[in-house]
């Protein structure tokens, strides 16, 4: 019974349980190979591209953003309400780099670099708005990051340089050429998002397992004790802000380029920040898996609740459905948080532990 490790290296792999490992490989295989094939042959539910474009693509991108938020909020314990703003910085700066900045003679950059530079810009401003975290914490810090949200909402609405002086203030993604390959169809967009998510989830998972992640968690659990143990709060906190904003910025660029195509600052308003925060709280603070679960819950349940009455043939107006959806969804969030305050990730963990003790769980 049980799996025994014979070396430290084996004990330190990302997925120490064999079943977990196999599960992840299967999931990756499904997402990378089987799903595009199903799409190509229109196997249900891929008869139309709805499932791919309206569910999977936003799910992947929001999961990525939630991973970013989770690093800051879940791993480092710094509450942030500015995630929407960092997504917006990623989106608009990626747009600027992708269309070229004529003022400094910069030609349009390849799209991958534009997206990564968008992320870097977000990281820069993340560090800047993370500075107050060295003095204040908790709810006070949340209010300080809220400033970022409103400031950048304002900047992208009013500073015309960011929108290349478009008369409507609405900007449109440049041609999506990845290494010379034009991405246009739903499957291609999905694959691009998937690759970004896999790469960044892997990086994030390894960061939080390593030295820097342990520093973040030490700061989260008790910052004074962490400092006494030789962890420098400045480095730990600001690195969390930088990494988190970088990932959120990349997600913002993907959201703008792949999902919306044409967007305005309203796409990244305070509601987006709150939504991301709810994702990590419901999914599970301090868990990469939780980010995915939370994103799935927040994104899919409302759509499901909206579609359900019509599909069951219940004759109520869309307005009533929309109100009902808010009520039911709100109730579900309350129930889940009362039953399991640590989120879905904790449920998964408990289930896994019970299975390992099976058939005698306690």
């Amino acid at each position, binding site marked *: 019974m049980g799996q025994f490790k014979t070396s430290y290296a084996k004990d330190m792999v990302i997925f120490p349980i064999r079943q977990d490992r196999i599960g992840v490989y299967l999931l990756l295989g499904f997402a990378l190979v089987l799903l595009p094939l199903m799409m190509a042959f229109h196997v249900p539910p891929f008869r139309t591209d709805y499932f791919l474009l309206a569910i999977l693509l936003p799910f992947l991108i929001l999961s990525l953003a939630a991973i970013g938020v989770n690093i800051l909020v879940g791993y480092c314990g710094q509450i942030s309400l500015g995630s929407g703003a960092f997504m917006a910085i990623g989106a608009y700066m990626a747009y600027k780099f992708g269309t070229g900045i004529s003022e400094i003679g910069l030609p349009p950059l390849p799209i991958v670099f534009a997206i990564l530079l968008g992320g870097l810009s977000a990281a820069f401003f993340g560090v800047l708005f993370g500075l107050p975290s060295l003095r204040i914490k908790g709810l006070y810090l949340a209010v300080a990051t809220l400033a970022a949200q409103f400031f950048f909402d304002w900047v992208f*609405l009013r500073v015309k340089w960011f929108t290349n002086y478009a008369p409507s203030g609405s900007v449109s993604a440049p041609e999506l050429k990845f290494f010379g390959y034009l991405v246009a169809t739903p499957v291609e967009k999905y694959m691009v998002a998937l690759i970004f998510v896999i790469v960044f989830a892997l990086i994030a998972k390894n960061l939080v397992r390593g030295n820097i992640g342990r520093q973040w968690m030490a700061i989260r659990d008790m910052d004074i004790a962490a400092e006494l143990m030789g962890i420098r709060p400045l480095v730990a906190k600001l690195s969390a802000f930088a990494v988190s904003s970088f990932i959120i910025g990349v997600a913002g660029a993907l959201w703008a380029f792949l999902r919306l195509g044409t967007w305005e600052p309203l796409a990244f308003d305070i509601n987006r920040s709150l939504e991301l925060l709810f994702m990590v709280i419901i999914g599970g603070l301090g868990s990469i898996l939780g980010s995915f679960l939370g994103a799935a819950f927040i994104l899919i349940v409302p759509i499901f609740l909206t579609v359900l009455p019509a599909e069951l043939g219940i004759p109520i107006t869309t307005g009533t459905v929309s109100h009902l959806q808010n009520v039911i969804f709100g109730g579900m969030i309350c129930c889940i948080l009362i039953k399991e305050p640590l989120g879905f990730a904790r449920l998964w963990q408990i289930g896994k532990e019970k299975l390992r003790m099976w058939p005698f769980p306690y």
Partner: protein
Amino acid sequence: MSVKAFKLALAAVGGLALSSPVVMAQGQNEQFIPLLSYRTGAYAVNGIPWANGVSDYFNLLNERDGGINGVKIAFEECETGYATDKGVECYERLKGKGATGAAFFNPLSTGITFALTEKTLADKIPIITMGYGRADSKNGAVFAWNFPFLGTYWSAADIAMQHVAKEMGGEDKLKGKKIALVFHDSPYGKEPIPTLQVLAKKYGFTLMELPVTHPGVEQKSTWLQIRQNRPDYVLLWGWGVMNGTSVKEAAAVAYPRDKVIGVWWSGAEPDVLPAGDQAIGYKALTLGQSGAGEFAVHAALKQHVYAKNKGIAKDDFAQVLYNRGMINAMLGVEGIRKAMTRYGNKPLTGEQIRWGLENLDLPAERIKELGFEGMLTPVKITCNDHEGARSARVQQWDGKQWKMISDMYTARQEYTEPLVKEISSKYAEEKKITARDCSKPE
């Protein structure tokens, strides 16, 4: 798992299976028309009457005529809340429904229109943006799939300024005057600015641009600026709760309401009623010939839809936006009818309907036949001109109803056309679209 939980889970799984697009039992002889609307949120006051008008008109056709030339209309509403990402989700959900896919989309949101413009191009579905949307999409050579029927924001801006000039006593009187534009800070509100700038240069007035942040309930600082600068006229480009707030704030700073002129999206009953007597004297454009009121088509609605208890409008029946929703539905349906003359009386694809919309020609007699006489001027769409008509009147609120106070104005294309050319060709270049040659018949 308890029995109850198991049942719940089963119901959920069942629901999921139903909601997947596989199960779409739809009649084969039905034309599917999606309806993106908003009945909740900050813009619901305007979204509800419009959506009611659209769906009542579809119901009328189904009840009275059995659809369009015998093809029943199947329509489904999707709540966008005026939010772009929800609008995109609705679009993806509804675009493939029905026997032939969605006939056309009309999102009633400039932001959603911007986001859908590229998607409809790829999916070959027309997008009707009557009185809103991208102003440069008037140029059908570049924007083959966009139809900003009856007037773009650039036309609206020019018409509003024509009326201002007339009230002042001539275009030469505009020189040195101050005109403020209070606008919803979104693509919608920003659209008229290029035209107003052209006119400001031409006539020598100064343009004050005063943005109001979504949703528009906080306007104190905006109207403080108006109190300080005392512009001669205020043009209002608002939507939803912003409109009513603007009218109230104008009263609060004692700015004369009869010097405030709203665009045709700021001139409905929900925009003035909350302000009560403070709204008396406020002016707004109409889209086309008329605003509120009952016409021949309303009698038909009462007879065929409301008598059977199938209508959904309440107080909003025959209000400004309700009527506009009907006109919007009628133009789309006539586009389908036109396409049927070429492709036959059966459910058509978006691509076929696009042809119908582009060749839509509604002379006065046909409008009368449809029961819309007095509601809109003749419309003729061509490849070069996806707008079709660009006339409006000015109405004034007297505390109880909107009163027409002007004749028809027609937007002067000599001011808007260069902008259409410039900005649409810039778009074509950015998106690598080759403009169609409109001299060649399709």
